[in-house]
């Protein structure tokens, strides 16, 4: 079970309806939220990916459960890439890659659970940005914390929250969108 914000039931519908409905549903969603589309049309997998890539939404992946295909999409926002980063301490992807074996750091992935499960750094733990305030206490203040998201924007917000609470925190820029190092999936 992957936690998502919204579920669209397109089971039993033939092409083009799964995409027509997905498109309509996405339009009404807030940027950044994750939609799970349940479909039984096998062709929907290639089409939903092609459509999402074209319009700029993030196709996260598809899980097959028997006859049902569950597609995961995250609604894009234009501001995400260009927005200003406010947290002063940052590290590049390449530099983080050299620290992966360091036991004195904690890597926190603040993307949505569905983004995390399909692909994340092998030793990253998942705390979505929206849950950071409540779950901050899970983190040890003895370790340096590296926060990562897709493009560095959500992790910038998380870094500010953590810094305000006294953590030694560094934002990974740009993050998963250009990560070339090792990854793993939790499926």
């Amino acid at each position, binding site marked *: 079970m992957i936690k998502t914000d919204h579920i669209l039931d397109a089971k039993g519908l033939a092409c*083009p309806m799964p995409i027509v409905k997905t498109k309509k549903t996405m339009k009404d969603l807030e940027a950044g939220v994750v939609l799970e589309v349940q479909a039984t049309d096998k062709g929907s997998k290639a089409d939903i990916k092609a459509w999402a890539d074209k319009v700029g939404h993030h196709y996260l992946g598809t899980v097959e459960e028997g006859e049902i295909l569950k597609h995961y999409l995250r609604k894009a926002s234009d501001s995400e890439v260009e927005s200003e980063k406010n947290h002063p301490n940052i590290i590049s992807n390449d530099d983080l890659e050299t620290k992966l074996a360091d036991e004195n750091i904690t890597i926190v992935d603040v993307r949505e659970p569905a983004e995390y499960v399909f692909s994340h750094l092998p030793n990253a733990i998942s705390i979505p940005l929206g849950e950071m305030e409540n779950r901050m206490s899970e983190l040890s203040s003895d370790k340096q914390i590296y926060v990562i998201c897709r493009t560095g924007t959500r992790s910038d917000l998380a870094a500010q929250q953590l810094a305000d609470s006294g953590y030694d925190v560094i934002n990974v820029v740009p993050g998963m969108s250009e990560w070339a190092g090792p990854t793993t999936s939790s499926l």
Partner: protein
Amino acid sequence: MDLKQRQASEVASKVLNKEDLFILDVRNEEAYGDWKIEGESVTSINVPYFDLIDGVEDLLPELPKDKEILVVCAKEGSSVFVGEELIEAGIENVSYLSGGMKAWSEYLEPVKVGDLPGGALYQFVRIGKGCLSYLVESNGEAAVVDATRMIENYTTFAENKGLTIKATMDTHLHADHISGGKALADQVNGTYYLPEEDAGEVTFPFTALKEGNNVTIGEVTIEPIYSPGHTIGSTSLMINDAYLLTGDILFVESIGRPDLAGKAEDWVLDLRTTLYNRYKEMAGELVVLPAHFSKMAELGETGVVSAKLEELYEKNEGLHVEEEAEFRRMVTENLPPQPNAYQEIRETNMGKITPDEETRREMEIGPNRCAVN
């Protein structure tokens, strides 16, 4: 105007007769890039249906004003959706392909190759996939060679002509399409022939297709000729000393490749011996009939894919590679990608797995990739 429905047979006859055909293919770009309806007289453009959900206005300038527009998709749902949008936008002459590319992949067009004593030889052109199968008839008896899984095409054809199918034969264990040979033989109580060397893992009974064991259909003799190289068992069929069915060994514009079972290195010499020695000793007048074609241009005036053996020794570049090392490179390097699901297709043809109808369909979707181009 209403949206018209076009059957795969109508589209096939337009392609074969080289009639103008304008296609709007609304599948995703990857599917279109992989395979599409092609032909000398065919113009097609690709705009995925999901780009047209909100309207077709941007597309209108790209469409011809004076021609029928055939909308094509994977199964047909999206082509109906887009077709109706076009009509709403005021385009008059719009149709869709019934059953979509799925139907196109399964359509067979029977064309007559020539007369035989007491009958004739027919080629069944699977135009969407490039597969060719054959039916030999003589004095009310028939044999089917390299049958596709759509066996009702042969049974209906035989019924209409009052023929009894006595035998079905596969020139080799196919990896690019699911054979209908065994199923057809079972249905008509005929004999299924398959080369022994390819049948090591086959789980059902069959009769060996091998040199010396000629098969007689009415007044016609079918003579197996061992011609390995695509597979170790590949066997050609000489029909009445006039036609040579070469399976996947020799095509009109190219030659077979030996790697489908992962045996490229082992089978190169077999392939070379078949093409450069065995066939060369045969009569140049023989009409070569392959199991595949790769380009629509290979279809002759009547739709038949064929060539005289001596012509192929003149024109087919695959038969003009003097150096053995160069030949080895050509047939083992830079090969096109393997056909979709080829392992599963082989296992199905061996009787090891029995996927349902829908899965069989899916396994065969996509282009044929058997030849070295």
